[in-house]
């Protein structure tokens, strides 16, 4: 499970694909940790190509959100499928993590 990155307006975009489940969540966490430097000030996790996520994957996103908050960086997720958005809502994650429809919208929001 890999994480690719690119930079847009000083925001780090991290992207992964496929399933994030109990079998590969640890791998996802390691890849995400390696991709995010402690000097980052704004990070967007792009979930457009993610087809499935379970609580094991949500845990990684929560830990990432917490660690970015500690380093005073902004964090958002974008491009969630309908099912993943529902999981976010049921988990109450949409109350603590900014969710945007598109990558550009997320990058714009983090600029301010």
């Amino acid at each position, binding site marked *: 499970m890999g994480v690719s990155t690119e930079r847009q307006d000083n925001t780090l975009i991290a992207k992964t694909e496929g399933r994030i*489940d*109990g*079998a590969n969540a640890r791998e996802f966490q390691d890849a995400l940790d390696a991709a995010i430097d402690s000097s980052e000030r704004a990070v967007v996790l792009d979930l457009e190509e993610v087809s499935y996520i379970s609580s094991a994957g949500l845990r990684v996103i929560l830990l990432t959100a917490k660690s970015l908050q500690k380093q005073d960086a902004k964090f958002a997720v974008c491009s969630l499928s309908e099912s993943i958005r529902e999981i976010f809502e049921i988990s109450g994650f949409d109350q603590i993590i900014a969710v945007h429809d598109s990558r550009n919208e997320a990058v714009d929001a983090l600029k301010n």
Partner: protein
Amino acid sequence: MSTELRLKVETRHDELDRVSAAIEDFALEADWPLDLAFKVNLALEEVVINVMNYGHDDGLHEIDIILTTEEDSLTIEIVDDGRPFDPLHDAPIPDVNAELEERNIGGLGIHLVRKMMDDVQYRREEGKNRLTLVTSLAK
């Protein structure tokens, strides 16, 4: 007409791939809407991974999974020989309204199962946990 899918998995994480592949095939065959396959996959993973992580002290054990579809409902039965665990009463209840700093992931998996399924029943029988999940197949 009812159809059935039976799976036997060992208590190791890489078995999850086999479970999800079997559900995807079953869903395709039965022409399920996409979100239903997602829901079923999720509920199964959350229950099964709990058994894998906390059910036993040592060794590999087997978990039986039986999916039965009736005309308008799907029943999922999960049977394991792990220590007694009733997710309806024994799982921590997550605070889904806590602020980010206080947010904890414990119990979230079972919370998702309860929210996504229409009915969840637990029985302890003959030294085994039997969890039955029911969801509607209405499109």
